[in-house]
């Protein structure tokens, strides 16, 4: 049988899933957390605590500001030390709340038992409300508020709920371990989301390099209107638009949303968070993070509290190896290098990858030889070499015409380029500038 995959472009980098099969270790709350107030796409939340306040685990510390925004909760019990600018993963300072942990006393309404609660009597409306209250965002990395995605715009209709268990980024295994260990919760979560979205069929997409996860999910979904689909291993299959292409052969129109073709996609991590929020009243205060690297002594999958410093995670995984030259926040394809380890884990942190010295550096940039391999691998059908040269010349109007905003920043072009040209760097820059230009145009 020919396996399904997306039609256009794509690459297959070495998988390096070192931490696959490692159980999820639950880390105790750290002595101190720093929780940024903007961990999601959309408007930053407004801080509702003040310095010196005592907060409990799960208490709201920043409230959603507008529709595309969400709540942020304390991940420990303790005292608010500071509400100030703290360094984020780019080194720039952003508003965050620092809490010193004293204890781990959860809010009363949170159900801490391990029992699986299978049924829900809530209406779709109430499910969405609970998700917003719990501060859930897309945990695949894009951090788009989940309640917004569950609200289908008027005039459109969702037919399918797609669960993204692809995890196409090399090294990362957080979603894989979640499917293996918390499958039952995931299935319940999927059924809740089907209800929230008012659809009656769901499909889970999993790449074929995780046969155990495919088998496990198939067992659990037997007799349910939930299909499990194995997919050929190809990066960036975990991209929303690529996954939809692979599963349904439907093309999301440029500038459009998946719901335009009747599909809404969620990551498995998000589904698990929804389960916890709806059935256990537990807000999003922790997540699974893969900490991995070739010379790390103990690559692991951790369930950690939001706000835990990255340095602590690295210590728990065996300490920083001496030959580490780069620490990447996220996967090696789309992630960004950290300038310091003293930054907190946020809702969007899916992994921490330690890269060894010989593999960490970029190669010398050579002139473009017009081989068009970047065009061949672009899953969105763009021309990266052209976008780069236009961005170099600051020709933003032309970049807009060349559909730069369609770029999903997967980095396949930079990966394949035989001249090691920094294609994605320029495209990201161009995209940001075109975005600014369009906003300025709208403001006039």
């Amino acid at each position, binding site marked *: 049988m020919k396996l399904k995959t997306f039609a256009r472009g794509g690459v297959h980098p070495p998988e390096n899933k070192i931490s696959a099969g490692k159980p999820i270790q639950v880390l105790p709350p750290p002595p101190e957390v720093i929780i940024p107030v903007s961990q999601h796409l959309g408007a930053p939340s407004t801080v509702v605590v003040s310095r010196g306040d005592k907060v409990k685990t799960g208490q709201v510390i920043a409230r959603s500001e507008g529709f595309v925004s969400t709540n942020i909760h304390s991940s420990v019990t303790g005292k608010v030390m500071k509400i100030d600018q703290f360094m984020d993963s*780019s*080194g720039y300072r952003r508003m965050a709340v620092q809490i010193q942990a004293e204890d781990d006393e959860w809010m009363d309404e949170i159900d801490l038992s391990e029992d699986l609660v299978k049924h829900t009597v809530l209406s779709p409306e109430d499910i969405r409300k609970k998700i917003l209250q719990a501060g859930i965002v897309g945990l695949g990395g894009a951090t788009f508020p989940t309640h917004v995605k569950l609200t289908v715009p008027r005039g459109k209709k969702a037919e399918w709920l797609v669960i993204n268990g692809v995890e196409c980024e090399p090294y990362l295994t957080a979603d894989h371990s979640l499917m293996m260990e918390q499958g039952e919760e995931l299935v319940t979560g999927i059924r809740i989301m089907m209800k929230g979205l008012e659809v009656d069929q769901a499909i889970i997409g999993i790449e074929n390099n995780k046969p155990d996860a495919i088998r496990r999910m198939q067992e659990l979904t037997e007799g349910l209107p939930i299909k499990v689909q194995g997919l050929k291993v190809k990066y960036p299959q975990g991209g929303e638009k690529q996954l939809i292409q692979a599963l349904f052969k439907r093309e999301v129109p440029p500038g459009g949303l998946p719901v335009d073709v009747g599909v809404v996609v969620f990551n498995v991590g998000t589904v698990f968070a929804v389960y916890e929020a709806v059935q256990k009243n537990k807000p999003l205060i922790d997540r699974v993070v893969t900490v991995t690297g070739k010379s790390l002594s103990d690559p692991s999958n951790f369930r950690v509290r939001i706000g835990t410093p990255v340095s602590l995670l690295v210590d728990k995984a065996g300490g920083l190896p001496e030959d580490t030259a780069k620490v990447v926040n996220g996967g090696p394809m789309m992630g*960004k290098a950290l*300038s310091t380890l003293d930054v907190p884990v946020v809702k969007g942190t899916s992994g921490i990858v330690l890269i060894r010295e010989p593999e960490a550096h*970029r190669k010398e940039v050579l002139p473009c030889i017009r081989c068009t391999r970047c065009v061949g691998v672009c899953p969105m059908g763009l021309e990266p070499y052209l976008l780069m040269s236009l961005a170099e010349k600051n020709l933003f109007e032309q970049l807009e015409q060349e559909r730069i905003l369609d770029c999903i920043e997967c980095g396949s072009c930079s990966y394949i380029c035989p001249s090691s040209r920094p294609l994605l*760097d320029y495209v990201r820059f161009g995209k940001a500038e075109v975005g600014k230009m369009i906003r300025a145009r709208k403001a006039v």
Partner: protein
Amino acid sequence: MSQIIIITILTLAGIGTVAAVILYFVAQKFKVYEDPRIDLVEEALPAANCGGCGFAGCRNFAENLVKSENWDNLYCPVGGNETMARVAGILGREAVEQAPRVAVVRCYGTPEHHPRTTRYEGAHTCAIAHSLYTGEGSCPHGCLGLGDCVESCNFDAIHMNPETGLPEVIDEKCTACGACVEACPRDIIELRKKNKKDRKIFVSCINEEKGAVAKKNCAVACIGCSKCFKVCPYDAITMNNNLAFIDSDKCKLCRKCVTECPTNAIHEINFPPRKTEVTRKAEAEETN
């Protein structure tokens, strides 16, 4: 044989005449009147086409000079007062004078003062590095040292100093067109009034973070202590968001603030060496 030649000549001459007549009437019909003074003014301009005046090249600027009633916002920084006077002469108007200016780099985060904690290997432009992170050092306002300003200069007036990793302006070549000011994603470069002998006093830092944070990243950062603000006898210094700023129009170059600054963030350039107690005594003895 000769008949063929005569016919050819006559035919061509006929076509030529008809075409000339048509062209004449067309030219009359679609004639565009252009003020001849525009050409004269354009000739008087430096022809650098740098855009420093804010217009698309010298021709466009000349058109605006001829057209506009009000010259308040029209000034050629490259040609300066001399060129503006010449233009005013051509148009029989009064020239607008502006004090000559020069670009000043307001960062002194050399590797020694502003230790590098990371290594940047991405695309070699400041604009991209700025959008990604704070740069090799950890100051979010400091110079990234990748030379977007050097690239933007049409006059070869700004160069990277490989030792300090910072750009340096050659005052004689700088025309204050403002291209580097525009190119710098961190707004480090400022156009300041040109003083006698190219003397300059300025706060060589634009970090608006709190003093302790700024100082941690860079030894020569302005920490917003306000000492210079208090000592300035001419009200030339203002404090804003933990940062001192010296207004070059008000500054009388007295140098009092320079010695006051605890982090040496205020620079004095092209001044004679200060008189120490020893030299002062020696001088006094000489005059006696």
